[in-house]
């Protein structure tokens, strides 16, 4: 694993690259799109575990922090959902450049899933498949609370569902509200813990079954 900074001097992003171990055949690469705020902190351990597991089966993985979050440059609150989607595009370009991958998988958790879906719809040649883990289905309500000034409907999965890549997996581990459009996609449900809920920080528990399911589906 290598921690590093990438992106433009005006918008430096922090990333962690896990190289593929024993890669074979087509170069496979995945960019993780994390949740925002406390959910990011709570899910950190789980996402690191997922990166490690994917790396072990031959997938290059880039985890990164959006501008104004985590270890990336920028002040907290200095951000917009549209800006974070651009950060995902920057991360895709960076990982492709590092690995010579033709396209990447996106793995998004919570609002990261909504943004991954948006980027996947906008960049069909860059994104081979998408994992949408406990996406925010009431997108407008969530984003109104957290980010004023964005066009919330752009991230509403019920509006994006028809244009998502054929290989899209919805992973549900938490109390996500159901959506008829989402139900038409490939959905995997896992009992047990949701990695982004606060209680996880007290125990360090990770949703093992969900991790195994995602790794299996992606490889």
């Amino acid at each position, binding site marked *: 694993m290598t921690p590093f900074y990438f992106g433009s001097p005006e918008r430096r992003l922090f990333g962690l690259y896990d190289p593929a171990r024993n890669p074979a055949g087509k170069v496979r690469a995945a960019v993780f799109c994390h949740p925002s705020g*406390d959910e990011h902190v709570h899910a*950190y351990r789980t996402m690191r575990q997922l990166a490690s597991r994917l790396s072990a089966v031959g997938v290059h993985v880039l985890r990164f922090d959006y501008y104004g979050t985590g270890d990336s440059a920028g002040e907290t609150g200095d951000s917009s959902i549209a800006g974070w989607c651009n950060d995902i595009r920057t991360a895709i370009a960076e990982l492709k450049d590092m690995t010579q991958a033709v396209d990447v998988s996106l793995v998004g958790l919570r609002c990261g899933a909504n943004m991954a879906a948006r980027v996947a719809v906008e960049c069909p040649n860059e994104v081979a498949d998408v994992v949408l883990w406990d996406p925010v289905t009431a997108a407008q309500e969530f984003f109104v609370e957290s980010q004023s000034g964005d066009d919330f409907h752009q991230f509403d999965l019920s509006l994006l569902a028809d244009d998502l890549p054929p290989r899209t997996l919805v992973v549900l581990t938490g109390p996500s509200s159901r959506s008829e459009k989402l139900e038409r996609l490939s959905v995997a449900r896992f009992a047990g813990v949701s990695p982004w809920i606060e209680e996880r920080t007290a125990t360090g528990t990770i949703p093992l079954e969900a991790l195994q399911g995602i790794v299996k589906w992606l490889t």
Partner: protein
Amino acid sequence: MADVMNGFTEQALMFGRSRSLVGILVRPASECQARRPTVVILNTGIIHRVGHHRMYVTLARQLAASGHSVLRFDFSGIGDSRSRDGVLDPTAACLEDVSEALNYLGDLGLGGTFILVGLCSGADIALRYGPSDERVVGLVLLDPTIPPTVRFYAHYIGRRLMRSRSWLTFARGRGRIWQDMIERARLLFTARPQEGRSSVIDPQIRGELERVYKALVTRGTRLLVVLTGGSMQGRQSYREQLLEAFPNVPFDDALVLEHFEDSDHTFTSASQRERLKKVVLDWTGTMPFAAEATSRRSRHT
């Protein structure tokens, strides 16, 4: 991997004996200011190096802009740092990690003097490590473990008496008072805490903490202790609890004690985080070790 910004630079690092520890080194942009004590910020529980509400990122940048080099890093097995091989218990592993971090900073020429910063378990690790390393000239302890006092229990009972639910809990033999009474009885008859637990009311823990504080203030280490009204364990209820819990420690001028009555344990409120940042910056800027570092620099040039 440097990221140059206004007043500071940030660099992602892997260090330690097997390069298994991950951290972010934040340095002042101006070289002439770089001789103040280097600040090392420790994890809180299993929260990775950015801290709750990203508070350590902001604090580190502000400290760097004021002339301190700052390292935020993850203990082994936390955040992005690999678990440590071997048989060290978690506390011993954390102490070893701190030692490796300080030695690494020393190799970079940033190892003259250090200030350790920690919240909750991070504060306890800083406190335990401090006496073992003379390079540590200051500690910022946010909600460290403090044994309960008579006044604490008076506060606690007074608050609970106002709630009918508390009466019910007490009558059922539950709640903190019962738990502490049972634990005290256990310690009295067995001299051992409940298996798998270290209790803050254990006289051994209290004695160890007292020895640590004594060693630090005797050596001249400066302490900034910030207590919140919303301590997670509910073990602190008033500003002077630290002083009354350790009446034999001659804190005197070594201690600056702050009580954030309206803050919760993780400084969720942005205004409380801003207040904390100001308190820390004021403290690092006015403590004698700042002047000492400047004086040492003058003698060297």
